[in-house]
């Protein structure tokens, strides 16, 4: 891997990068029909959004230097967010793209090549390789910051490659997420509001096969009555309307994992509401990935009762029907990273897992006179 040391220096918020990201984003927006996730990515990269992000940086900041990104293989867009913010910070970036990356990732790379901007191509690299310890070691040794996304095991494996003494890792390991619904708010909501809540939940859960860190794996019903039956029926209807198809192998996967959870005594009841919706009765959310369209339904009488169930691993809470003050109080007491309304689980935020990425991608300089 030949890093171009004579490459032009970039500043934090370099205009050439901002202009490139804007162009890049606009091109991705045109692909949004085929890949809906590229539309949200495209929006994120527009000049207005990027400048808003830059304005959040305080103090005297410099790029960190060389940043080596290892994004997850199967979430097609994460590598762009990770890279774009680091490029915006003025870093030289090397992004490892998995050869198993999906169609959306390939579409992104096509746009990347098509735009072919000299300042960018000399400072920014997207490289595809599968398993190559030598190259990983070399890139790790060259990095000032290494950004690791993915499962706990792969983060552990990658951490074995030494960094320079001053360098460090920014890791985004396995996380899990769940939804909370206020029973009284649900009961008060109109039929239309309930339906659109379920449609938003569908987006949160079914995009990325319920396997993204922020995809809800279960629902906590907060209140005194059980109104989950209507939600489940609506979800069956919405999956049908959206044309969601469960492949036979996935249907088998759902059975293996849910029967296994029952064997362990972790679920009291399994209901196959349709081929696309499996509902589990359980006192807690099951945090591991069980399949596509598999949800625990659990009851708690209040958010306070939910607090002790929250674990370090829990990342995103998608909510329906709560007041802002309740949510802030819950977030503070439970320690989750992110609380968002239904429909926003998969939206990328420049603050992720508790890190403000742009801050992490820069270093703070102090000058005292």
């Amino acid at each position: 891997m030949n890093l171009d040391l004579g490459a032009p220096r970039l500043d934090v918020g370099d205009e050439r990068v901002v202009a490139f990201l804007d162009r890049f984003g606009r091109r991705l927006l045109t692909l949004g029909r085929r890949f809906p996730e590229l539309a949200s990515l495209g929006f994120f990269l527009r000049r207005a959004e990027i400048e808003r992000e830059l304005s959040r940086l305080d103090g005297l900041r410099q790029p960190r230097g060389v940043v080596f990104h290892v994004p997850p293989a199967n979430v097609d867009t994460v590598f762009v967010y990770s890279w774009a913010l680091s490029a915006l910070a003025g870093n030289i970036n090397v992004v490892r793209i998995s050869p198993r990356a999906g169609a959306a990732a390939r579409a992104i790379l096509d746009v990347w090549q098509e735009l072919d901007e000299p300042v960018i191509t000399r400072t920014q690299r997207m490289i595809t390789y599968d398993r190559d310890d030598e190259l990983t070691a070399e890139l790790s040794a060259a990095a000032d910051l290494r950004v690791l996304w993915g499962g706990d095991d792969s983060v552990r494996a990658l951490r074995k490659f030494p960094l320079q003494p001053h360098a460090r890792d920014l890791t985004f390991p396995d996380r899990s997420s769940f939804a909370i619904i206020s029973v009284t708010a649900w009961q008060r909501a109109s039929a239309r509001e309930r339906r659109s809540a379920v449609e938003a939940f569908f987006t949160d859960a079914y995009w990325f096969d319920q396997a993204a860190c922020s995809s809800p794996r279960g629902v906590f019903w907060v209140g005194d009555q059980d109104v989950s039956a209507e939600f489940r029926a609506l979800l069956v209807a919405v999956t049908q309307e959206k044309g969601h198809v469960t492949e036979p192998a996935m249907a088998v996967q759902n059975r293996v994992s849910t029967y296994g959870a029952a064997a362990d005594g972790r679920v009291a009841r399994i209901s196959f509401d349709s081929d696309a919706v499996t509902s589990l009765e359980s006192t807690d959310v099951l945090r591991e990935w069980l399949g596509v369209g598999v949800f625990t339904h659990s009851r708690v009488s209040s958010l306070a009762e939910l607090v002790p169930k929250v674990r370090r691993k829990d990342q995103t809470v998608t909510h329906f029907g709560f007041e802002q003050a309740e949510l802030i109080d819950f977030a503070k007491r439970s320690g989750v990273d992110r609380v968002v309304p239904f429909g926003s689980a998969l939206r990328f935020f420049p603050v992720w897992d508790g890190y403000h990425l742009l801050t992490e991608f820069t270093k703070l300089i102090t000058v005292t006179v």
Partner: protein
Amino acid sequence: MSLVPELAELTAYHRERCAEYDRILAALGAGDTFAEVADLPWLPVRLFKTHELKSIPDSEVFRVLTSSGTTGAPSRIFLDKAAAAAQTRQLSATLQRVLGPSRLPMLVVDRKSIVRSSSARGAGVLGMANFGRKHVYLLDESEQPDLAALQRFLDTHGGEPFLVFGFTFLVWQYLYVLAREHGLDLSNGILIHSGGWKKLADRAVDNAEFRRRFAEDTGLRRIHNYYGMVEQIGTVFVEGPSGDGLYCPDFADVVIRDPRTWAEQPVGVPGVIEVVSTLPRSYPGHVLLTEDLGVCHGIDDGDWPGKRFTVLGRLPKAEVRGCSDTVAA
């Protein structure tokens, strides 16, 4: 005779003895009366990879069988003495139908050391070796065919019925090719083979072609493919003499299921194969959903009485997206 009463009794038996199995059936709201075989609750066969399921106390475990999965953990199947004896007995009863009552000289299309490996191939050879005598192994330790050994075997035993056993792909690649090239006469052989057609599909060899070419080029006409798995050890589904499908032993059955509704498919419509057997008593493996696709061709309309079916291949793997999948370096 319907298997339903015995299967219902087995279901209750395992629920009493295997807490995990009982919890699964309770979570599914399974009842205890069943009108048809297809009404019985099934377990996905992969559950034996993720969980230890047994209906005998630890002190009674006599043998633990493991499958050779290409990925992940192997299945673990627990047998007590009675179950180990029953599986040998029933396998023998099933194979007698094609082999007759006496042990035949046996040509194994594999290497001798395979029985010491923990592979499916090894387990297959080990299980089948009981049904032959004077075993000769066709492959040497570097997996090359030993023509001299084959010729000696045929000189000694080729004039009387003999048993040939091996994995489908090896049988084709080594035995067929060698016999054809050297004009060997295999017409007294009875071939029992298993393992699937995937590797042969590249060479455009399917079951019909396999049978035709063996018959034309080597004289070998008594060919029986079979289907079975370690999770239902002792139960094998053997192909009829004309190759018109796999048949169930009288203590077993298959149900072809629609992968969307899981209802039983009508004759002629492919689906996921569920294997049913009254044999498993030491672990709750009497009704298992496999990850194989198959189709039922007919009932009581072929070589032998009963249901006849074919295995069409593996279920295609599910591709999953998600964050937790960065593969290390």
